[in-house]
């Protein structure tokens, strides 16, 4: 293997079948205490609805088999705990372990959402403090912690915008979305009942002011903007953008996915944003866990406050906290039982650990991105040259000349011990390499990454085949996604 690969080495990886393939009747992994009431006659209790033979083919294994099975499976995964994820706009930062500890405390993990409010003051205080902290960070006036993820937050944001316009007599028809936007933006706008109008970015990858001025009419409900953009570039004219929208009574929605470039440095509310969502599983360190759960709080200016989803956290005259369901203009509920409380706890723990020092995290994130950019400029093509914030977008234009594309480079990066960066997004950069190192990366890890990328660029020129057929060192090689889509096998069968 290439001797420039310093961070990764090959190691023995165990094979492991499906849990069902280890199953054998009579094995047990769990015991219950003896029943302390008379046993029920199941046939009598449930009659024709009794599932007399149990759940067919459910696994039967022992405790140690469960431990080994899932431990072995875990060793097949890359994770933040192992090293950097340079994934753009994902903000894969350290998931502090104290967050896991406090989320599991008896009295925090155990509370029922319908228990009396006077016996839930601890939970309500957590929610209240988190609200205050997020309002301070975003510079907004009101907030809901209910949405379960960023995409649901976007939906709430658009429903709030719709309710606002409806109250003013005209819900309006269109939402403007830059062509650099994340796919959830247009998908959400359609679900909220709006037509999507794409707005082309200018040569700098920013919103073109002249085009915007033309497109904003009284039929436009809002512009959905990501800031910094998905190119990692700050939308410098955001106050003008807000002005153009407000002049026609439209609103500015900000996708807060890239908040890791802004926290403690500037506040979206000050920039003219009317409503925005945050991804707690990005900027606020809650764990990705292989794809969720997340949380997508939505912060807004006063004008949208009457439309908040139910319930709204309120303080009673005696100082205690309560949930207020009596809000006639509310958009309703988007999820049962409130927000993802367990995720909200973790986000608050993160904020408390940093305090006002959260600015340092932002500075380090932006430093890391610019450090990597500086080292790789010239090695990879840089389509947009404006200053980068917390992420940088290159393209594969130079490597394409040797038949190597961004997907190949990403797969070869795996052999060097890294998770790939974001490939092929944003759509406005053909062959994109979107790199976000976050503040959790040390100089050493950044240097390993730079070195790996430089080495792959050389390989692309001199020995392109090794890049095009990567990865070479994983337990599983490239998988046949075509067969998986043509004849989907979505479950095990005996």
């Amino acid at each position, binding site marked *: 293997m290439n001797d420039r690969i310093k961070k990764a080495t090959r190691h023995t990886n165990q094979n492991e079948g499906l849990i069902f393939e280890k199953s054998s009747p009579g094995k047990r992994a769990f015991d219950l205490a003896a029943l302390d009431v008379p046993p029920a006659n199941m046939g009598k209790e449930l009659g024709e609805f009794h599932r007399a033979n149990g759940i067919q083919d459910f696994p039967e294994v022992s405790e140690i088999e469960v431990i080994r099975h899932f431990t072995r499976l875990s060793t097949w995964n890359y994770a933040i705990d192992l090293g950097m994820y340079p994934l753009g706009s994902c903000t894969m930062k350290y998931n502090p372990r104290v967050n896991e500890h406090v989320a599991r405390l008896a009295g925090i993990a155990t509370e029922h959402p319908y228990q009396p409010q006077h016996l839930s003051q601890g939970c309500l205080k957590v929610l209240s403090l988190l609200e205050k902290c997020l309002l301070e960070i975003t510079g907004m006036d009101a907030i809901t912690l209910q949405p379960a993820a960023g995409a649901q937050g976007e939906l709430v944001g658009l429903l709030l915008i719709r309710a606002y316009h409806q109250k003013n007599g005209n819900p309006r028809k269109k939402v403007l979305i830059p062509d650099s936007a994340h796919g959830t933006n247009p998908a959400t706008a359609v679900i909220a009942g709006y037509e999507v109008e794409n707005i082309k970015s200018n040569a700098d990858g920013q919103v073109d002011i002249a085009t915007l001025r033309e497109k904003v009419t009284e039929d436009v409900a809002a512009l959905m903007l990501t800031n910094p953009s998905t190119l990692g570039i700050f939308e410098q004219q955001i106050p003008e953008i807000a002005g153009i929208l407000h002049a026609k009574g439209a609103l500015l929605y900000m996708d807060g996915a890239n908040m890791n470039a802004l926290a403690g440095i500037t506040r979206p509310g000050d920039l003219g944003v009317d409503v925005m969502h945050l991804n707690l599983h990005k900027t606020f360190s809650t764990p990705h866990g292989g794809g969720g759960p997340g949380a997508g709080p939505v912060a807004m200016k006063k004008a949208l406050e009457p439309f908040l989803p139910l319930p709204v956290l309120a303080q009673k005259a005696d100082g205690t906290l309560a949930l207020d369901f009596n809000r006639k203009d509310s958009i309703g509920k988007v999820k049962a039982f409130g927000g993802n409380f367990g995720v909200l706890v973790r986000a608050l723990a993160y904020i408390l650990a940093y305090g006002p020092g959260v600015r340092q995290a932002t500075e380090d994130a932006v430093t890391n991105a610019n450090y990597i950019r500086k080292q790789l400029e010239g090695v990879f093509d840089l389509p947009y040259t404006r200053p980068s914030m917390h992420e940088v977008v290159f393209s594969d234009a130079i490597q394409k000349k040797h038949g190597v594309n961004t997907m190949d480079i990403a797969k070869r990066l795996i052999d060097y011990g890294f998770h790939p960066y974001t490939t092929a997004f944003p759509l406005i950069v053909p062959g994109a390499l979107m790199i976000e190192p976050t503040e959790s990366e040390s100089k050493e890890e950044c240097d390993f990454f730079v070195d790996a990328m430089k080495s792959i660029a050389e390989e692309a020129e001199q020995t392109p085949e090794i890049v095009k057929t990567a990865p070479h060192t994983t337990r599983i090689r490239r998988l046949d*996604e*075509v067969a998986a*889509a*043509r004849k989907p096998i979505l479950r095990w069968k005996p």
Partner: protein
Amino acid sequence: MSYPTQFRYTKEHEWIDLKGDVATIGITDYAQHELGDVVFVELPAVGATLTTGKTFSSVESVKAVSEIYAPASGQVVEANTELQNKPESINTDPHGAGWLVKVKLSNPAELNSLMDAKAYEAYIEEKKKEASA
């Protein structure tokens, strides 16, 4: 692959082959090559109406979906249901077994404004030049 001279072609890379008053429609070799391995095809039902320029079908690869636009108007008389089991026919035989629908045209004269094989081959040469520029 050569482009059959009896077909007519659109800028969106559909081909149409008229025999009598029924036309067969598919996508070209250039299109299937751009799309990659086809995994799924969505076809209209028999009896459905096609309107020139509007989408009537979609062809999916693993990572992308391509809308297919009607080159002419008419009514679907047959849909290539074999594609449910063998979507790969679009890749291996795009001008033959990979056909999508057979349509009874409402205005066969519409075909006159489409490209012939020579014009289409020139058109895709231009496209290839643009892509590598």
